[in-house]
């Protein structure tokens, strides 16, 4: 047994990692829906979900259950194989892209092994990501076509055209960053931003690459078919777009795929333009390392305080518990500095990802949807030229400064 472990350690570790990551991502997905609904609701001065569990915290579970238990009809005259393939493809690709992201700078030491955060560390990471994004078009397109129905077909056409168009801008806008880092590997890109630790936030790519960032974020939003680029599933025009004919779990697959790609894009944004796991403060400010606890403890205390006055018994039990756990973790971080040191990277990365997710939701709450011709002309006539210009400028600057 043990020698088996010793022999195939790498494989086993990777498998474990995969399982963990899957679990985390799916949970996050579920709570992302809750988060989105809450935020949008508050933007529209509603309560949002608050029946199921305290603050509707159990809503995602309910939704999941619903997805699993509902009947799954297959419409007449669909192309069976493709009809099943489409959501599978979408979900698989979306989840795969997560596997390429690194989540922390330094590996964990367990069982005398270095286990770095993240499943694979490709030296062509960003390219691989783009490859996967490129393939993820098929999810929508095939779904639309195979459903053998008008609205999905239109949705599929729209999404495929849209994604091809914006992929150009997406790829182009990153070239600037790649030129500055001189590598495709996400790690290298982050380390390149850490070249001057004393500068802190000023070392990030956003400032030199602001154009690139704007282009990238816009194009990425379009790639994920999110508002304001969600023409593929425009409720008001196409019922539900390419997944009109899908129900229950197949529908859930599309859903999860979309949210997962949101997470991926947010992670990419923060890695490539916002210094990934780097702290915004100069390296000399060591006290900034206590920021996690400085956030967790008060928040935990607030949750406790909020929980004891909660109307339902259930809430009065759960919320203080959660708060207590948070506060406890915060305290632990102070007590065990090495954990604190280790937690820094992931903390900042997750923080940034969270921010971008919020930004997504925010946009959804704010922006109206593009008209299709606007979408196309925007992508081809504005985004692409700007990103190209960004590439040229960056290249020239780099050449002049003689890197």
């Amino acid at each position: 047994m043990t020698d088996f472990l010793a022999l195939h350690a790498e494989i086993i570790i990777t498998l474990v990692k995969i399982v963990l990551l899957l679990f985390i991502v799916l949970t996050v997905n579920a709570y992302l829906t809750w988060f989105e609904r809450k935020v949008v609701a508050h933007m529209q001065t509603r309560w949002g979900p608050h029946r199921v569990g305290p603050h509707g915290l159990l809503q995602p579970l309910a939704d999941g259950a619903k997805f699993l238990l509902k009947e799954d009809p297959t419409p007449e005259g669909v192309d069976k194989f493709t009809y099943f393939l489409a959501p599978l493809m979408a979900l698989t690709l979306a989840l795969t892209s997560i596997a390429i992201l690194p989540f922390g700078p330094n590996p964990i030491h367990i069982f005398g092994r270095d286990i770095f955060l993240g499943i694979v560390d490709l030296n062509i990471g960003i390219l691989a990501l783009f490859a996967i994004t490129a393939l993820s078009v098929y999810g929508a397109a095939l779904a639309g076509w195979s459903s053998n129905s008008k609205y999905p077909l239109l949705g599929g056409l729209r999404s495929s055209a849209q994604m091809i168009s914006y992929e150009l801008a997406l790829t182009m806008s990153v070239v600037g960053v790649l030129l500055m880092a001189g590598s495709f590997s996400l790690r290298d890109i982050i380390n390149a931003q850490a070249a001057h630790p004393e500068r802190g936030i000023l070392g990030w790519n956003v400032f030199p690459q602001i154009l690139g960032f704007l282009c990238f974020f816009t194009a990425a939003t379009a790639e994920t078919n999110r508002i304001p680029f969600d023409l593929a599933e425009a409720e008001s025009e196409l019922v539900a777009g390419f997944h009109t004919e899908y129900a229950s779990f197949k529908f859930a697959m599309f859903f999860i795929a979309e949210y997962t790609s949101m997470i991926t894009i947010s992670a990419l944004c923060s890695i490539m333009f916002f210094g990934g796991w780097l702290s915004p403060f100069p390296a000399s400010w060591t006290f900034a390392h206590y920021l996690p606890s400085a956030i967790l403890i008060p928040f935990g205390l607030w949750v406790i305080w909020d929980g004891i006055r909660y109307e339902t018994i259930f809430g009065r039990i759960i919320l203080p518990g959660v708060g207590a756990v948070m506060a406890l973790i915060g305290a632990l971080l102070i007590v065990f500095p090495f954990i604190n040191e280790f937690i820094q990277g992931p903390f900042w990365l997750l923080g940034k990802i969270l921010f971008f997710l919020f930004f997504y939701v925010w946009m959804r709450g704010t922006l109206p949807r593009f008209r299709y011709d606007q979408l196309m002309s925007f992508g081809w006539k504005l985004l692409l030229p700007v990103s190209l210009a960004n590439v040229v400028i960056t290249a020239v600057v780099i050449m002049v400064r003689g890197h």
Partner: protein
Amino acid sequence: MNAPLIIFFVLAAIAIMGAVNLILQSHPIHCALSLIVVMVALAGLYLLMGAEFVAAVQIIVYGGAIMVLFVFVIMLLNAGAEERTNISRLAGIAGLPLAIVLMGFIAAAVAQSTDRVQAAAQLGAPAPTKALAGLLFQEFVYPFELTSFLILVAILGAIVLAQREKN
């Protein structure tokens, strides 16, 4: 039987099956899907040979752009399963044997002719993308520019062809 060899055979099998499927399937969309499979398998082979960049480009451009275009057109024209006409006698009779002969020819030829290549073949060091870029932008810069021109022409041509003549 080492790991790369196993991987090679798996991928090769996938590729060939995909290609065969391309021939057998009757609906263009399925053909397109099987072609995509072939392409992904080839990308895997490129990775195996250490040509990461080419592999990525293979998937991004072929899988993500060209084939999407095909699928798009198929959806646009709503092309159904192809009808079984058999007007061209010649193709029906001479096609298959000739094609097989051709295949055998090429296979035999390369198999016979690659012994020298074999002598020269070293372990495929992972192709540094930097070196590739250098080659592409210095030695092959004029062809490169020409290709850009080619693409421009292609865009114009596509627009001209696809737009409905206004009358």
